[in-house]
């Protein structure tokens, strides 16, 4: 699979390259959540907004399962990063 695209950064928050993602998919880490655990893809401030689709396509290329049928991984709150001081003030109950 080696090629000139291997150095492209796919997860910009955690600086993970296409080559690293392909290497771990090859080792059997074939779900988004397992790749996230081993490479930290999708764990940064953007929470996978930038890399998720590209990684799902890479998983699809290896497993021959269509992207639509691949579990996209777990989405966790908050929807966007929020400052601790804002959260500490609380909200309306």
């Amino acid at each position, binding site marked *: 699979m080696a090629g000139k695209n291997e150095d492209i950064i796919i997860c910009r928050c955690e600086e993970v390259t296409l080559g690293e993602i392909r290497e771990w998919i090859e080792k059997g880490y074939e779900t988004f*959540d397992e790749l996230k655990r*081993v490479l930290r893809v999708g764990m940064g401030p953007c929470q996978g907004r930038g890399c998720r689709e590209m990684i799902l396509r890479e998983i699809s290329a290896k497993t021959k399962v269509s992207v639509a049928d691949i579990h996209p991984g777990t989405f*966790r*709150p908050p929807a966007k*990063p929020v400052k*601790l*001081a804002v959260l500490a003030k609380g909200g309306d109950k």
Partner: protein
Amino acid sequence: MSWKRTADVVVIGAGVQGCSIAYNLAKMGVKDIVVLEKGTICSGSTGRCGAGIRAQWGTEMNCRFGLAAVEKFEQLHEELGMDCGLNQSGYLMVAYKDSEFEQLQKSMKLQNSLGINTRVVTYDEAKEICPGLAAEDAVGFTFHDRDGHADPFLTTFAYMEAAKRLGVKFLRFTEATDVKTVAGRVAGIVSSRGDIDAPVVVNAAGGYSQFISKMAGVEIPNFSERHEILITEPVEPGVCPPMLMSFSGNYYIQQRPHGSIIGGCSPEGHPQDYELGNSWDFLEMMSRTFVRLLPRTKGVRVVRQWSGLYNMTPDRQPVLCEADNVKGFFLSCGYSGHGFMFGPISGELLAQLILGQEPWIPIGMLHYSRFERGELLIEPAVV
């Protein structure tokens, strides 16, 4: 891959316990080991935990486990051939009440007698260890510099990869649905994908271990409690290098070398509903703790919150033994929130027990029969 109908050992659960047990058994020469995981590797309590490693405990058993685990972690990268993200910046324990500080010092004496060099530190020293700390209301601190944390994902994967190299098979998306027994002996398992006959079955199912035990006809008083946790965006290091922990303050907070800060606390109401959800109440409470204790974090953003199950026992110490009434059925569960840090040592000790050897740290008192006998040795040091 065709279905494997027999094995020498079936391990249920691919968290740190299951992976460490499988690796240690394979290392000791067992050839045919299968690990079942109902989800993906490290998708349960290990992957959701706070990642701390400490030897600062309040019972002799936990101190010995804690110290042995710290020593294991110190050479784990070399042994398993993969970086486990170990970071030893210590645990700084914070007491807000005189009685709590007395308990910390009592535990410290026990720790010191076992070779754990915990010491009392002043508030000024505490601020040197943790530059952002604001704890004028604290009455005392203890610190142990070999405590710290490791990456639970990388540690578990490192055990799995090392076990695979020794021939262990891992079956993901394969749920154990029954444990077969014949005449007081375990005979194998039934899973969502087929049966496997085996003379040894290990229950390392974490938050779901009580269900697996029940399938084998073993009743243990374990229960699972949901705990919540959050992580911030990465910021410059030095905000909170040690794990800050307080039992009365109800928190643990630590900055990873990567820069993000993790924090969790014990939940109100101790929910036991197996829901792995997230609550606004936790987010607000934990954020208040952050900005009070580490005022410089007020502009730092939370990027993610999640929850996981503490598999609790009545004395908050693990169950690590062979079942009395079902020979060949072994249990490694009930870690009460500390299964990740004990994984490297408990996996080795259970592997020794399975192979009929004398575990090098005696684990007789971790048999679940202690609950029936009322011989509880309650661990005071749990958040």
